[in-house]
């Protein structure tokens, strides 16, 4: 493992990274490092995102035309590649979110019935 952090973090489930990226971009254009930061912060540092894993995912989303990318200048005057959600990406986010909600609800119900 690359991070030997004090707290043990949750590893991401397969396929959920795409959903998190799309969700993060709903607040506006962001570069890769910003996306990584945002995911970690919003999850209260619970989620383990290996920053490197982000880029192939971004590349994949870009190829599917769910996000678009452009080189720009970051807040502290550095060159960075900024990603924006496209219309198709927005639709995909809605689809994926509802799927995710159904999935977690279903899994939750199963787990609760087992406990009960």
């Amino acid at each position, binding site marked *: 493992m690359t*991070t030997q952090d004090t707290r043990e973090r949750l590893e991401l489930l397969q396929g959920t990274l795409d959903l998190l990226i799309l969700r993060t971009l709903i607040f506006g254009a962001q570069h890769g*490092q910003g996306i*990584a930061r945002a995911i970690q912060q919003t999850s209260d540092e619970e989620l383990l995102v*290996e920053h*490197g894993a982000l880029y*192939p995912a971004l*590349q*994949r989303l870009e*190829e599917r035309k769910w996000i678009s990318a452009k080189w720009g200048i970051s807040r*502290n005057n550095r060159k960075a590649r900024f990603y924006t959600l496209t219309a198709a990406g927005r639709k995909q986010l809605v689809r994926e979110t509802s799927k995710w909600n159904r999935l977690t609800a279903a899994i939750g119900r199963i787990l609760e019935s087992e406990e009960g």
Partner: protein
Amino acid sequence: MWRRTRKASDFGAEIEAHIALETERLQEQGFSYEDARSAARLTFGNVTRVQERFYEASRWPEWDHFWQDGRYAARMLRKSPGFTAIAVLTIALGIGAATAIFSVVDATLLHPLPYPHPEQLVSVIDDLPGVGAQDVGMSVPEWHDFARSGIFEYVSPLGGGDVNLTGSSQPTRILFAAVPPNYFALLGAEPELGRSFNPEDATPGFTLEVLISDRLWKGAFASDPRILGKNIRLDNDLYQIIGVMPAGFHDPGRTAAERSTELWLATGFAGPPAPDPLRASHFLAPVIARIKPGLTMVEAQSGLDALVASLQNEFPEDYPLQSAWRVRLVPLKQTVVGDVRQSLIMLLGAVGLVLLIGCVNVANLLLARASARGREMAVRQALGAERSRLVWQLLSEGLLLSLLGGIVGIAILFCAKEFLLRIVPDSLPRLNEVSISWPVLLFALLATVIAGVIFGLAPAWHAGRVDLNYMLKQEGRGSTGSGEQARTRRVLVVTEFALSLVLMIAAGLLLRSFADLLQVQLGFNPQNVLAVRTWLPIPNDPATDIYRTPAQAAPFLREVLRRGRTLPGVEEIAMGDSAALPLGHGREDLNRYPLLMEGREAPSNGAPLVDASIVTPGYFHLLGMTLLRGRLFGEADDEKAPAVVVINETFARTYWPNENPVGQRIKIRMPGDRTTFAWNTVVGVLADSRTESLTDPSVPEMYMSLYQRPAKDLAIFMRGRLDAAAIPVELREQVQAVNPELPVFGAQTLHEALAGSLAARRFSMEIVGLFALTALLLAGMGIYGVISYLVSERTHEIGIRLALGAQRHRILQMILRQGLGLAIAGAAIGLVGALIVAHLMAGVLYGVRPADPVTFGVVALLLIAVALLACYIPARRAIRVDPLVALRHE
């Protein structure tokens, strides 16, 4: 997704930016730059792995490998220019030759005929199988029956010949076609200027309208813009030009001559000068037709069979049952291509073999190199290269080599195109359509790729089966060559020898056929004989013909002979019709007449057909023909004397097997011919001579006197020490001094005629011979390579043997025996293949059996001798080895 949308450097920059941003963020939290940077790197993970994932996701890795392999292969080939040059030239030779032959096959066999809906076009052929006669021609009533049958859209007989054209810039002899008015409608051809004939025109004789070719218009009429409506004279008859056919239009003829018609006349074939349109008067040939759209060949043929049966019932006296009249439809393309098909397929097969042998040779070379690179392969594999990648890399080397070879081959072909077309005989059908077209280039590409795969596969296959441990343990040795690899190379050499033997035997058989043809007893002497042709006009109205009867023509004939005899160098002179021209004439010059014999009843259609020539008495002596019995006809056998005829031995044997033919009476005539000829008495029998065909010794032939039977298509024969350039001009002056209207043309020595009749055979023999020599050379190189490799591998061993006192000649024997073994194995397999191929070739052989033991024996010995020679060179090197040096050889 094989095209990268984003550059790897861009991706790298993004990662760089990420780490910089993260470092900055951590620095803001109070870390030092170094700590911040290493923490940023740590959170990022494995940069290289991320980049690889980007790389794999964003492009097709095979494509990349392909380029990489290609670049690597190019570097390898550049590093050994000698090897590359030999391999590329071998392939270039094979691909170039195969493409050249294919371009001919493509034009003659594969291209559709250049008319709309060519699949509907057929030849209509009348046969009389009951009396063993084929293609006897069609009569005018039959033609009309077929045209009205509903089976065909149009039916069109084709006549023609050459005719004297006056009215252009100067009198010329031109080739014309006599066709019915529906001819151009049938072919679907339109004139470039003016109009064509009205297909509904039912004029029985010649219409007064003609169409001319683009070439005649541009040549004889200097592209006269007012050509339409212009009057011209053909054999003194007046015609009007109504149209000009485009340059691309050709009659569906077999040879260049048959396809270069310059003028088309329309006729109903039923008025003068054609014979009366009687049912039994079969003179229309060839006949072409266009089947009604929607009908298949089979349906058309069965419809025609029914029609033929009902006509036989209706006219029993014209179609006697024993002659078994039948009409057959043959796709027009098949008639146009004719018997060239067999030769072309043979050539394509031969060139395919050469290409294959070339491939095997290059495979052998590659394999030798692969064994030298065995260590390199093993090291790469040990370092984790996948086997499939190594196989692909070797394959791409093969493909690159063959691609280079293909390009060089096509380049050579483009440069040598003009030269190559010149050595192809004119008699090849559709020769002017031969070109390096897209399909031909596609063929070349396909052949190239297949060749590359074939010879790239052998080393690639081995690379995939390398024993790593064994390879790597071969400490410091560049060449290893596993036993298996050596075995493959030996198998390749045996294959090469087998293929070469097949080709060489094919070439040997063709050579023997050709030699036999040259040795054939001609039965006449072509030495110092020159023939010049002339043509007496045939006006449409016989009453205006000044040479109609023998009595009218004789003074002219005698005067031309008298004047010709005075020309320098002329020792003998004679005349005949065009059928009397030995060998040099085409099919249209043959006169095949139904033969009637006195005292024997022959049904009108059952009469046998014989070749008849009409000659002056001097002809036989001039050509050196031998009289067997009776007498020849002389000057006294003129129009007032009883008609006589001289026949050949085959004629006598065929029709009077147990009788003396001299004194028998025969006559020939076209049924329905208006002129009635008297019975001819056989006065003499000649020894057979091959004036008709070199290959066919026994054709019944008869000769009549030009003083007793008129002929229009004349040939003047002269023997002596002639100046071939001057004599035709001098003779023309003499002929035109008698009649200034007559054309004199077509001068040809009999030697030229002889050579011409052999041209196609000589061509295929030379080409196959050339291929066979190439194959032999390649096979020799192949065995040389294997044996020298063997010798270099065993230098150490040979050194030990020599040091222990082995005799040098024993070592020589040992090595030669190995080569001999390979050659004999190859020859044995090749002999089986050659037997099969020879039987397939039977149709193009002459005078030699397909399984000719002499050819097979001599060729096999020659092959083995070449193998021994190729082995001797490395073997000699082996016995000159200095034991001291050899023992140190590691």
